[in-house]
């Protein structure tokens, strides 16, 4: 089941959850390699949650590696930078991961583009909390765990709240993925430096780094660096269990407290961040290197050479696949992200974006659809759900389209980890139908709100 080795010390965890096969051994020992530049890059403007970035370059303009090509369009938005020296070759609408068609920009690489950039530390001493947040926003950094939520929004701590703990998520509980694992094992100093930078402004009591026990080398490496650090950093080994890396599950495992429904980790005084993201923070403040590349795991049973690559943002997927030796299966299934929460792709004509944590190339044998049977109420899903919902009852309600009744069973608390669908012996698409239900309910809520506003306006007249 597990990869080469496991951490032997004490581990903590949350209750419920599942144990899918890990498949991490395919790429867990592959050190991070730099992917060479390719001919052309494609950068969508909306790679993150929030408003798409606003383009500030024109077609034909020359840009340098690390140069800003788009500004943030609001508070919940970030800047975008060119990953190479080159020329803006096209501005238009292109296909993105998950089949989205969005505005973007293409950059033709200058054949003499170098990977070396001028390293210019930013003056932290003169910075206050507000400028720090602005700096992070202009660095283009978003959560690298997969959600791509603008990091500076998290770092902008409201006046009435207070950060007690900085918590780093190094669980990487999705099967197959090893990008965070490699980052932690190879760049522990960068991660700790990132924590120290953040803590200048967050002023926390302590930092925690939560790592699943299947990454003993990462735990050791970070422990070694953390020991010497002035600001107290505790590395905590967590049990190998899915979804240990969900923020609520990690907070519960480490602090023993639950994040109240509808609240944020910050309500418990926790500032949570992915390990890759904090490394990017260090890169920005120490070297002025914006988020122009990230570590991605390319793995699966149908890729020739599984690897962990440092890939420039905007690299076309097919170039990445070629670099890894190509696909060994006739009709592969290509996923972005992990197998539990990732999305299947229909084409390779899409770029690696800021939120791409992994590219999985699987065979049909793994991504198979099974015959669906009726629910036999075996309650395996009830025992798996990490937030103690009743997926069995929710599934029956979803089948009948009784969305409103699902509210009573707290469907909106579901964070779609897919543990229920994983265990269901009847192969009922539980989480799949919950996504639909949540979408319907959100839409309904929006419609109700609009109707209310309209009525209020009418009565005013």
């Amino acid at each position: 089941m597990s990869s080469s080795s496991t951490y032997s010390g004490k581990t903590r965890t949350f209750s419920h959850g599942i144990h899918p096969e890990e498949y991490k051994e395919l790429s867990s020992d592959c050190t991070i390699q730099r992917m060479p530049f390719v001919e052309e890059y494609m950068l969508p403007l909306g790679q993150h949650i929030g408003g798409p970035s606003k383009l500030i370059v024109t077609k034909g303009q020359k840009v340098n590696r690390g140069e800003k090509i788009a500004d943030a369009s609001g508070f919940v938005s970030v800047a975008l930078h060119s990953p190479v020296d080159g020329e803006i070759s096209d501005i238009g609408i292109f296909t993105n991961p998950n089949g989205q068609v969005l505005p973007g920009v293409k950059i033709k690489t200058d054949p003499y583009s170098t990977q070396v950039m001028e390293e210019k530390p930013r003056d932290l001493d003169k910075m206050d909390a507000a400028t720090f947040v602005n700096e992070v926003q202009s660095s283009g950094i978003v959560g690298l765990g997969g959600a791509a939520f603008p990091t500076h929004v998290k770092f902008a701590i409201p006046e009435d709240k207070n950060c007690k703990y900085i918590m780093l998520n190094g669980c990487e509980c999705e099967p197959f993925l090893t990008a965070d694992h490699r980052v932690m094992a190879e760049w522990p100093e960068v991660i700790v430096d990132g924590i120290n930078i953040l803590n200048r402004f967050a002023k926390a009591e302590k930092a925690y780094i939560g790592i699943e026990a299947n990454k003993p080398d990462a735990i050791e490496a970070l422990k070694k660096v953390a020991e010497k650090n002035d600001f107290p950093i505790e590395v905590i080994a967590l049990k190998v269990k899915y979804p240990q890396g969900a923020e609520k599950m990690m907070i519960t495992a480490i602090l023993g407290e639950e994040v109240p429904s509808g609240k944020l980790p910050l309500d418990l005084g926790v500032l949570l961040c992915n390990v890759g993201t904090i490394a990017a923070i260090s890169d920005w403040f120490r070297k002025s290197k914006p988020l122009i590349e990230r570590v991605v795991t390319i793995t699966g049973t149908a890729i020739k050479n599984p690897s962990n690559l440092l890939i420039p943002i905007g690299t076309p997927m097919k170039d990445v696949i070629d670099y890894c030796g190509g696909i060994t299966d006739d009709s592969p299934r290509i996923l972005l992200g992990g197998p539990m929460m990732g999305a299947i792709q229909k084409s390779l004509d899409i770029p690696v974006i800021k939120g791409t944590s992994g590219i999985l190339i699987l065979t049909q044998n793994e991504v198979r659809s099974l015959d669906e049977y009726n629910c036999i109420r075996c309650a395996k899903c009830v025992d798996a759900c990490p937030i103690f919902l009743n997926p069995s009852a929710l599934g029956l309600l979803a089948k009948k389209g009784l969305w409103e009744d699902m509210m009573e069973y707290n469907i909106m608390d579901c964070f779609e980890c897919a543990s229920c669908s994983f265990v269901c012996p009847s192969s009922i698409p539980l989480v799949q139908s919950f996504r639909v239900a949540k979408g319907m309910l959100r839409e309904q809520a929006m419609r109700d709100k609009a109707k209310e506003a309209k009525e209020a306006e009418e009565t005013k007249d």
Partner: protein
Amino acid sequence: MSSSKLSISTAPFLKEKETTPNIMLFVVYTLLPVLGVSFYYFGLSAVMITLTAVFSCMLTEWMFNKSGDKLKSLKDGSGLLTGILLALTLPPGFPLWMVFVGGVAAIGLGKAMWGGLGQNVFNPALLGRAFLQSAFPTAITTWSDPNGGYFSFRGTNLALPLFQGEPVDAVSGATPLAQMKFEKVSTDWIELLIGNVGGSLGETCGAILILMGLFLLLKGIIKWRIPLAIILTVSIFSGIFYLIDPEIYPSPIFMLLSGGMLLGTIYMATDPVTTPLTSKGGWIFGIGVGILIVLIRIWGGLPEGVMYAILLMNAGTPLINRFAKTRVYGHKTTK
């Protein structure tokens, strides 16, 4: 799936291997030793009643199946399981045509009518037996002696359809429960474990049922809460009466090993479809069944109460599910 078929699906792309048909088949496999013991004691009758019940259940399943894939509900293995379980609850000398009627009732009234697998409120096998109990009260309380040879029929097995028939064997043994109820004679627990006593096909041999129950628990097919709750409740509740007057009331050990107690606890009260989902619900269900068993056995008109105890609690299960909800993460109460 052919490679040309376009398959669009959403996460998760990993799946635990266990499937519903596998679970059903696994339970069927654990019933094979029980059937073996039944054959040892009741010979050809055990075989014929089981075959008839399975045939009748599968046939009804097939006839009621309206979905495009005519064989789908046969493939899930639940009809086969219901057939075997129904057979195990019947007396060895029961007319085969009545067994057939019972199978039709079990699947037709007990399952298909509710919408198929997973939708029924009552355990289908027990519902089929309850139907037979009210339709043929004499035949279902006529018991045969366990030692009648392998290759002979018992009682009125071969009665013509719509007839009661004449028993082929003269010996008719009362069950330990009936002896207790009407004559206040207890049966030794070793006899009950070995199974050399009168009773339904699958209920007499306590040892093999306990063994299979432990095996199912170990494999995680059944949960421990409901069986434990039933066993504890029956022991404590009947133990109190036994302590008051051991002359009149049966001992807890006798209560646990006699009649359909073990068969019902291990194979029917653990049926996931008709029992509560949550652990809290499981405790309520188990305690309810335990109390009802003791009440019916001691004060009811019938010597045996397991069937009705489970069926009554089945009826209460939707209600229990409604009240025994789990507390959701991040919520203070179980709202």
